[in-house]
């Protein structure tokens, strides 16, 4: 357990972020991690709880609390404290195929449920994870380890996001021959194009993909199944198919004037941005330029924040983020105690940068867009906003949001980015495989299972579960891999902790 009194002896120290005004000048990651020796003290703060809430991944009062991957957090925290990096890496990779991604992009459910956080700051498990995996790369522990025996079974995985990659990694380790299809030009799905470079540098993604290639996985890009390649062809070529194509159907805002030019889905905005960055360092100008523009972002989530950060980096004139819900409290409310997921107002990097640049928080709460206002050329010029409030519905007894009469305002807008979440799977693909969907347009399976109604077709990740976190995607990928392995071989020795 690290050090029994570590939580009393040491303060939490996080990776230091570069100052907002300086980091907005580039699109690179901007955290400076502690030197190894100091990071070890952060491991000492772990109490190795008898009930490690950090790794529970359990529903508490309707919200997930703790890591869905059941990462062996107490074990590797201890090993970090003892400087036993290799063993720490072994324990980490036992449950998590991609610590290099999760240690950068995960909202750290582990830390939010950490018992240390009950009175004080949680253990810096995310930074510890980062230290372990980066140490492993430097010291060669993370090198490719191709399987020695091949089963001769062929598996196609559609989609190279976190669930597809996890599933591929697991199945390949077992000796199955895995081919991953990606409709984009680069492998990684959301990891590549959904998450901006400053959060997850793309060479980090490539580093892992290259190892997976070395281990024998085939990646085929620019291959859009259901469009470029027929599903039937895939089904006939492979023993099993796993659909890991994400919940890539973005939620739209159906307000008048939606056809105005200058309205983008966040995912497209971010994709074009990263592609342009990677292809030409923006020289090709194929990205949506926000320079000197008034940018309005609809949606208060992580993607919205990524849009804020990206817009600022391009030199937007103003950035406003609108959110339907009221502002969450700054610290836990009485009815939201530890270890529940904290429903608090989190000021993420983009918002920090906005405050630094524009002097105020970009977020407006309890507000929605009532109309997009175009100029005569059909270009967006402003948006009409309206205030919302909760009213109790007498019929159902539930709260519902209604507009506040007479609260309309108009705000200048050159660009609107819609980051209002995703609705489910994309129809062309599910139609191609003829898989049954549930009411939320996710692919339907029995609860806890991954086999779809179509023989030999499995589904995992957001396309199955609905829009969610990277960690859930990895978990689904791992579990689906076990199901596939079992259906192929009659048993499975794949491990899901």
């Amino acid at each position, binding site marked *: 357990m690290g050090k029994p009194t570590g939580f009393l002896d040491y303060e939490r120290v996080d990776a230091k972020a570069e100052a907002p005004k300086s980091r907005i000048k580039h699109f690179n990651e901007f955290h400076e991690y502690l030197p190894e020796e100091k990071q070890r003290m952060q491991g000492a703060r772990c109490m190795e709880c*008898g009930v490690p809430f950090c790794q529970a991944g359990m529903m508490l009062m309707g919200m997930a609390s703790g890591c869905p991957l059941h990462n062996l957090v107490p074990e590797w925290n201890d090993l970090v404290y003892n400087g036993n990096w290799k063993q720490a890496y072994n324990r980490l990779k036992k449950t998590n195929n991609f610590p290099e991604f999760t240690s950068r992009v995960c909202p750290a459910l582990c830390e939010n449920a950490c018992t240390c956080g009950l009175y004080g700051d949680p253990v810096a498990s995310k930074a510890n994870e980062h230290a372990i995996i980066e140490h492993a790369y430097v010291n060669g522990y993370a090198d490719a380890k191709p399987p020695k025996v091949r089963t001769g079974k062929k598996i196609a995985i559609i989609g190279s996001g976190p669930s597809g990659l996890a599933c591929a990694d697991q199945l390949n380790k077992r*000796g199955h021959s895995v081919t991953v299809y990606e409709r984009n030009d680069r492998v990684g799905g959301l990891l590549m194009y959904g998450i901006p470079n400053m959060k997850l540098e793309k060479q980090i993604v490539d580093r892992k993909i290259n190892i997976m290639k070395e281990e024998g996985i085939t990646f085929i890009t620019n291959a859009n199944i259901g469009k470029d390649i027929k599903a039937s062809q895939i089904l006939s070529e492979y023993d099993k198919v796993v659909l890991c194509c994400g919940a890539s159907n973005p939620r739209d805002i159906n307000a008048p004037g939606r056809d105005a030019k200058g309205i983008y889905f966040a995912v497209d905005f971010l994709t074009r941005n990263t592609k342009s960055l990677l292809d030409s360092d923006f020289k090709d100008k194929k990205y949506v330029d926000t320079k000197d523009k008034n940018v309005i972002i609809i949606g208060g989530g992580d993607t919205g924040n990524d849009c804020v950060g990206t817009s600022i980096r391009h030199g937007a004139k103003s950035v406003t983020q609108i959110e339907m819900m009221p502002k969450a409290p700054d610290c836990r409310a009485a009815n939201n105690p530890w*270890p529940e997921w904290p429903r608090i107002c989190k000021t993420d990097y983009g918002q920090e940068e906005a405050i630094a640049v524009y002097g105020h928080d970009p977020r407006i709460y309890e507000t929605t867009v009532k109309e997009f206002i175009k100029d005569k050329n059909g270009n967006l010029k402003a948006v009409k906003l309206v205030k919302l409030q909760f009213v109790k519905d007498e019929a159902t007894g539930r709260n519902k949001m209604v507009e506040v009469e007479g609260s309309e305002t108009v705000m200048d807008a050159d660009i609107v980015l819609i980051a209002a979440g995703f609705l489910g799977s994309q129809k062309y693909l599910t139609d191609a495989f003829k898989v049954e969907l549930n009411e939320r347009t996710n692919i339907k399976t029995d609860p806890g299972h991954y086999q779809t109604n179509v023989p030999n077709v499995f589904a995992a990740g957001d396309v199955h579960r609905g829009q969610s976190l990277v960690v859930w995607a990895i978990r689904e990928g791992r579990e689906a891999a076990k199901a596939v392995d079992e259906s192929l071989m009659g048993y499975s020795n794949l491990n899901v902790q």
Partner: protein
Amino acid sequence: MFDAKLSVPRSPLYREEFEHDNCGIGACVNINGKKSRATVENALKIVENLEHRAGKDAEGKTGDGVGILTQVPHKFFTKVTKSLGIFIGEEREYGVGMFFFPQDELQRNQAKKMFEIIVEKEGLSFLGWREVPTKPEVLGHKAVECMPCIMQAFIKKPSEIEKGLEFDRKLYIVRRIFEQSNDVTYVVSLSSRTIVYKGMFLVGQLRTFFADLQDPDYLSAIALVHSRFSTNTNPSWERAHPNRFIVHNGEINTIKGNADKMLAREENMESEHLKGELYKILPVIDASGSDSAMLDNTLEFLVMSGMPLPLAVMITIPEPWANNKTMSQKKKDFYQYYATMMEPWDGPASILFSDGDLMGAVLDRNGLRPSRYYITDDGEVILSSEVGVLPIDPAKIVKKERLHPGKMLLIDTVKGEVIDDEQLKDAYAGRQPYGEWLDSNLVKLRELKIPNVRVPEFTYEERQRMQKVFGYTYDELKQVILPMAKNGNEAIAAMGVDTPIPVLNKTYHPLFDYFKQLFAQVTNPPIDAIREEVVTSTTVYIGTGGNLLEEKPENCDILKVENPIMTNTDLLKIKSMKKKGFKVETVPIIYYKNTSLEKAINRLFVEVDRIFREGVNIIILSDRGVDENHVAIPSLLAVSALQQHLVQTKKRTSVSVILETAEPRDVHHFATLLGFGATAINPYLAQESIKELIDSHMLDKDYYAAVDDYNHAVISGIVKIASKMGISTIQSYQGSKIFEAIGLDYDLVDKYFAGTVCRVGGISIADIEKQVNDMHSLAFDPLGLASDLTLDSPGHHKARSGGDEHLYNPQTIHLLQEATRRGDYELFKQYTACVNDENSPKTLRGLMDFNYPKKGIPLDQVESVDSIVKRFKTGAMSYGSISKEAHECLAIAMNNLGGKSNTGEGGEDLERLSIGPDGLNKCSAIKQVASGRFGVTSKYLTSAQEIQIKMAQGAKPGEGGHLPGGKVYPWIAKTRHSTPGVGLISPPPHHDIYSIEDLAQLIYDLKNANKDARISVKLVSEAGVGTVAAGVAKAGAQVILVSGYDGGTGAAPRNSIHNAGLPWELGLAETHQTLIQNGLRNKVRIETDGKLMSGRDVVIAALLGAEEYGFATAPLVTMGCVMMRVCNLDTCPVGVATQNPELRKRFRGKPEYVENFMKFIAEEMREIMAELGFKTIDEMVGHTELLKVRDNLDERYAKVDLSNILNNPYAGSKEKVTFDPKQVYDFGLEKTQDERVLLKQLSKALETGAKRSVEVDVTNTDRSFGTILGSEITKRFYNTLPEDTYRVLCNGAGGQSFGAFIPKGLTLELVGDSNDYFGKGLSGGKLIVYPPKGSTFKQDENIIIGNVALYGATSGKAFINGVAGERFCVRNSGAVAVVEGCGDHGCEYMTGGRAVILGSIGKNFAAGMSGGIAYVLDEKNDLYTKTNKDMVSSYEITSKYDVLELKDLIKEHVAYTNSEKGKMILDNFGEYLPKFKKIIPHDYEEMQKAIVQMEEKGLSAEQAQIEAFYANKK
């Protein structure tokens, strides 16, 4: 035999073997062999005065058994046979048989005829029968119902056979033939020298039932008597003592192993004397007999084979010799020689034996039974469990002594000699050149050469695969193997078990885990293997056991191994040893995967038989060689199956079995292997795993040192496990099978683990086989594919998501905390829904369901919540283990509800005993009395509503505790009456409870200390707990708590938490049913606890028989506990289980939360009760018929057989099966001298506190003398009276617990002597004892008070003009005592006060002493050889302050007792002073110095303690 007519059915959970008995014993002997009436009379009187050591049934009319052994009374028999026309001839020319025949005449006549025929066939002549005159009308109806027909037979000695032993040998053969030809008769005795009269009597009935014993012509020079206190009252005439040779007070803990080995030994025992006759005798042991009977069988066999009786006793019950620094080499050699052939019959025992010429007495190595004797100037020896049983003129007494631990007293009435231990053993040790024989024959492992062969090693990947095959886990690597290899000790864990038992667990558990360790509670004591290491031994012997009956050098052709846990090198040495008398061969225990495990075992037998015929005598069972197509027989299965095969085929003592195995890694694993028969174990994979720890930098240590430390940790752990059962040597532990199985198929157990109790059925051999294959497939993928070889983390103890399911998990903890915090019952129901999750049952009760009647009753008719919660209690958690805030929070909550909170064993702050200025009642209703007796004062006891005697606790039954100095914060030290910063030890046993009658005594003491409190006894569920509970009920307890093994918030070694004890469902059901079976159920309330988490749990407890319910973990969780499981580290992050002031600030519990929990539980109970149709709890208790096994269970769960629990034969009867106040045990306190005399005479003085004196006569039956008076003083004055306000002068013999708990202001002055527990819990009073005028013996050489004096004394003074028994001043924390000598283990566990000892002391002085000072007069300069120096230093007395203190105390001693020794010292003080040594504990000395330094800096006393504490902690 006579048990047939039972009026009540038997509980399916009950087994006859669970029965225990303890007793009072006595003997009268005329040294010169002068036969007299007085000897018989006196013996009968002794037994009559030991009434409080005898048991009786619920009605008090039938006794547990009383008997007497005398010489054959020739004069009497001559007289009575004459009238029958039988001519018996001269003394010893005939043999007399005493028979219990069946009442059935036909059966009896056949038996008699059979006996006559056998006598004649054996060449003797049968003289005739005599019906023994009896008076059945004096007996209780139960005794009469099963009374046998009692007759005597007379047999003539043929002229060619010599008188005495040779004739008796002939009679022995006759008896053995008869016993095997007839199974309805019990032969009480058959001898020409001795005769036994016994039966199911109350002590007074022996004399009145047998008119023979009152006949003036019934004379004897030897008489042994015995009164039995059995746990049960199931009728049995034959179980009364004496046996044929012995009377036994105690218990043989290792009996199963001893009996097995004795049966096997039959093959290699040969003697001239029984040549050609052996087949008539065998088996030596009657396996259906009691432990005493089997010991008697064995002694008898050895004697008949020609071994002298004292020698036979000496080798079966040897004194501890291996670690004895003062024993002569000659004597050690003698013991060593016999140790190679006979393992100790281990356990508390005081044994008296006689063959009609010799009479002897011996005490076990621990001295756990009292035996005192007087020798008079007219040649009488009077020996008894207590003094004062016979009035003897003090002027006639030449010696007052006691039996010393491991020592023997022998009286030869033929030669007219008393032979003491030294003389006797020297004589035997000198009979043969044992030393020479050993030197040339005995092989020592450590001296064997290491051969030039490589030790096999694994590659990294091989090792990983093997770990996977054998189910190793990361938890085990990190939390089991690592701490042992690192520190040489097992790791400590906390907060009990909340994972499913192995059979219900979805994750893999090796077979070891299906066996639960048994432990001693009540009927025999666990021992302290750490502080009393001197009595332990880890040596084992490997090879062919010699012929016990012939003394020859070849007998010691055997390999001596000091630690049976072997390194690879050790094993290699054995494998390649080439020595005469040894032949070693390795037998694989691996077999082809996917073939039958059962066949593999059979093949093993065949293989072993084959090599045995070839002369192999060391068999190494090896599971090396597991590969793609080989799997291993689970090592425990292989060992136990083979052991059984070897016993059955009588090879066991001819061969030894060593195990070379990958499987065991945890201490418990090794314990089961040794316990089921392995002689030594080489755990090669565990040791390889240590290499992995080193290679992966998890352990920085030399590999060989780490392995040594690991092996040491294992063996120390096993010694501790053995000591929980009271066993001190590994040699006796081997094969003793001290386990209960749970969740194994009955056939499997019968076949391969015969003799092991298994009452919950489960998986079969086919399931085990499947498990083996499944585990193998994980490591060796069936298709050769890659699989994850890293170790899994199932989280058996500390949880890991995805591993074992824990009852306390994030969800249940959070829901419970929120529900109780918000007072939200709906949320609470969500919580209980998780706990009761029917899809994955985690407990036995989880497999049960209610058998709801068609119609229930409306909820509003059910007893109210407010009424139900009064039955609720919180667990015993000491102030010290949990914080002040948490402890008080529980007390306030329970007092608000009218329930009860429990102090735990740490005492209670004085301020809390009365309601404070805040109006809150923080006084715990239950005051616990545990083995450490911390803070147990008269005031503490008088403030109790219930006093709980903790015999065991769920977390670590059979173990003591150790509160390290760093946790003894000043405020904790204050309530525990100890020193801050100095560690505190709770001994494993209560040193005043080694047996059931001792417990009865403590119950009596406490009842005297607080007449209004009910006395509760806390037991832990294990096989036989019901039988123990019956004994406890007979001893007067009013509440019996049966705790589950899984509860327990305390810190303990991991194996104690997980592998000792059983779920409460079993123990509770057994207790409830066994009490009904014995007619005792209405005398007690039954309480249960152990992870009770929902209303459903509690209702099930009620239906199984519990009336009151305890909760500990759940209330802690409501107060903020998050099951961190670091209670042992003082780092509890929520301020519950810590004393750290910073962390305590984090405590956020409130009494309301606890109250909400209790109310919610009650509410949920009400809902179920309404459905079940019960209005009250009382109506519901015991209605087991309303429980059934859950429908539609998964296949694995469905295998678990609960029928023994659910088939309660007493369920649904109309009889009341709850406590009935009308039947409450009657202590008869109104008859005590305190009530009759003292309180009456002092009544006026007590009102005012005026000075008064009283004089009374006392005898040994006046027990707990002065205690009631003391309690009255405490109630009125607490400790405000001046010393000597009330003086009571007593003449005679003080009974047990003389002056227990007496407070300041009371002085008891005793002229005479006193028994055990003198001054127990002394709370400020003064005790003075000295011999009467006219005594001629020397005071400083003769014993005056018994064992365990001043146990747990907190303050006061004692002046003792004579020698004390063993364990003088044990756990004294504040009293000042002066004595003139003491026995073994003096000042053990002492934490404060002063002891001045003006004479010689026994061994192991100051063991575990952490505080206080002893001044010892060391005239022979041998104190250093007798002191246990682990914790103390010895100094000459130099400081002025010390000199003054010593001198003042001696002065006071002389003033009160007129001590001659004292006077001599004072008169020559300058000469004596240099001979005194000051014994002071290191830590105590450090702290005292630190406190003084702080005080010198000007700090107040209190502040100085705090500062000194922190300074020391750094």
